[in-house]
């Protein structure tokens, strides 16, 4: 089944000259200065357009965009609990499908998009997400990954990177900070064999919007994982947010790729990576790391990149790359 490949055959790309003017997510919300997550969310909403039905898990984006009078949504929006965005999106899709089948209302082509942070995706929401991906609902799930529970005040999640300081992974004599490697959610999503998976960074905003647009274009479930800098939680200057989102890709820590019908496509090749140290030193959450810790991170990042390259090669035999 080449569901995504087929659906994307005549895909009309968003280009710098053709950026959608619609803003389903408006200004006037109450996100922190330099929030990379809200920027990603706004771009994603633009890419989907006015047909968006938003399903929001508990998290920063819920709390900065929904309370009156700073409500920022111009489209149907439902806040669910922390763990169940994908399950509620499944219900929204199935309920609409049933009514459309009965002819109770026309198929208006609405795009159901569930979004959650890294905690709501990789920790508490993982079961609901896996169920929804497995059942094959026609919806898109966006993980806005700021690498910790920022809404409750910077606690670690399973997407917090190795070595990072959070309030529940405090570095000290008996701890390096976060001691586990970041959970690889895009690969977990891809393992479900869904039509479309992508990673994105707000530093490449056109790329980000195109990936979200592709995700809502393909039939069946799609998963987009967006790296979302959080200056407040990462202890870095707000004006460095985009730069941080660029460095993480250029250091090969967060590769930009797509998985289309199981085929891995590198969307940004990093031929001359910057050392991971360059990326880590800009954020105070990594300040305590010693050279040997950084060397370990570099080693694992290199190994992960090689593995991804091998997957790209293995799933694109005809290109001979």
């Amino acid at each position, binding site marked *: 089944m080449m569901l995504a490949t087929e659906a994307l055959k005549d895909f009309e790309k968003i280009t710098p000259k053709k950026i959608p003017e619609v803003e389903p997510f408006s200004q006037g919300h109450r996100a922190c200065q330099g929030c990379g997550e809200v920027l990603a969310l706004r771009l994603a909403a633009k890419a989907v357009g006015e047909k968006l039905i938003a399903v929001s898990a508990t998290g920063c984006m819920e709390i900065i965009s929904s309370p009156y009078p700073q409500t920022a949504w111009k489209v149907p929006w439902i806040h669910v609990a*922390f763990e169940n965005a994908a399950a509620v999106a499944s219900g929204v899709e199935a309920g609409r499908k049933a009514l459309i089948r009965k002819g109770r209302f026309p198929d208006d082509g609405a795009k159901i998009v569930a979004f959650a942070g890294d905690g709501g995706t990789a*920790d508490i929401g993982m079961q609901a997400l896996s169920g929804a991906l497995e059942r094959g609902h026609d919806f898109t799930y966006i993980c806005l990954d700021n690498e910790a529970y920022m809404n409750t005040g910077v606690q670690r999640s399973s997407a917090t990177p190795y070595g990072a300081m959070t309030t529940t*992974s405090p570095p000290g004599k008996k701890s390096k900070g976060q001691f586990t490697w970041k959970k690889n959610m895009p690969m977990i999503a891809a393992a479900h064999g869904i039509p479309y998976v992508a990673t994105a960074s707000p530093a490449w905003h056109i790329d980000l919007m195109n990936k979200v647009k592709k995700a809502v274009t393909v039939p069946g479930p799609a998963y987009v994982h967006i790296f979302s800098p959080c200056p407040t939680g990462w202890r870095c200057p707000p004006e460095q947010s985009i730069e941080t989102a660029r460095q993480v890709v250029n250091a090969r820590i967060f590769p930009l790729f797509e998985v289309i019908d199981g085929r891995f496509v590198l969307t940004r090749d990093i031929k001359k990576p910057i050392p991971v140290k360059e990326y880590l030193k800009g954020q105070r959450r990594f300040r305590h790391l010693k050279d040997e810790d950084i060397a370990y991170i570099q080693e694992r990042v290199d190994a992960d990149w090689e593995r991804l390259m091998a997957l790209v090669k293995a799933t694109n035999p005809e290109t001979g790359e």
Partner: protein
Amino acid sequence: MNGDDACCEGALAAGCRFFAGYPITPATEVAERMSHRLPEVDGIFIQMEDEIASMAAILGGSWGGAKSMTSTSGPGFSLMMENIGLGICTETPCVVCNVQRAGPSTGLPTLVGQADMMQARWGSHGHYEIIALSPSSPQEMFDFTIEAFNLSEQYRLPVMIMADEVVGHMNERVVIPPADQIVTVERTAPTSDPAQYLPYQPDASGIAPMANFGDGYHMHVTGLTHDAKGYPTMTAEAQAWMVDRLIGKIRDNADKIISYDTMFLDDAEIVVAAYGISARSAKGAVLAGRQAGLKVGLVKLNTVWPFPEEFFSHLSTKVKALLMPEINMGQMVLELERLAQGRCQVVRITHPGGAIINPSTILAAIQDVFEETK
């Protein structure tokens, strides 16, 4: 220190060496402090992937032999319910601190509520008894957490600390006594020959001695209805034996478990009964009432479950009215209504949550009742 921090310190003083939790306002500070403090005493802190896993992990931790605890609030407490029932059924000592916020659902995450009181009592399926304490100050967060561990170890069940956002976040002086002055209780270890050991056969105290995994005793722990050996036994007789025991061990010891403080009860015509942060509002109102010459008394509940049934049943024959302020639409007051059986008036002073009940509101209610009953 604040109440959440005091809860953490109380747990450590009681011997807690394993904490599994998940961030949730307004209980996050308990977990945060645990993540710093437990490694200092060679304990283990784990941030789990959700509250279901947190509650399950402390059951496992307890069977592993460590005094174990979790903390949470509203939605997390709801997620823990199935595993709380598992802890009741498997008679697993552990402590759950619920720093209550206003619900239902996400509700008011940063603001106070006391509306999980009946959920604490009945939230998991099946019929059982529980123990729940309600602190009204950071000092009591410290003291009651120790008490919660002691009760859980003694009676072998999850014990709940039903705190609230105001108590959790208020900063007050907390006196931590020297370690040798802190009384701690440890689960009774079996002394029998491992070949003869019955993990659910009560001894003379009415509670079964508990071996930990690895102690050399054969253990079979299950949430299925089980016999004294711990093996699933799916009969009505086995069910009766097990449920009677789970309920009996609390009901039969209710006098020893229940704790409350009283003020001005000797000549009181009207009594305000309260718990948690509302007990402090009530105290203010009662003192003001006394200054105004009203014969009003106070009962401050330290234990909320089991409820002091005999005490209130008796009290209802001596007073004109019982008043209960609580930050919900009437939960624990249902117990008062049940026990008073019409012998005295029972007045609800309710609040949907998001703010504490002002002493002036309670005083006005006291004055109203005096006017009506003149």
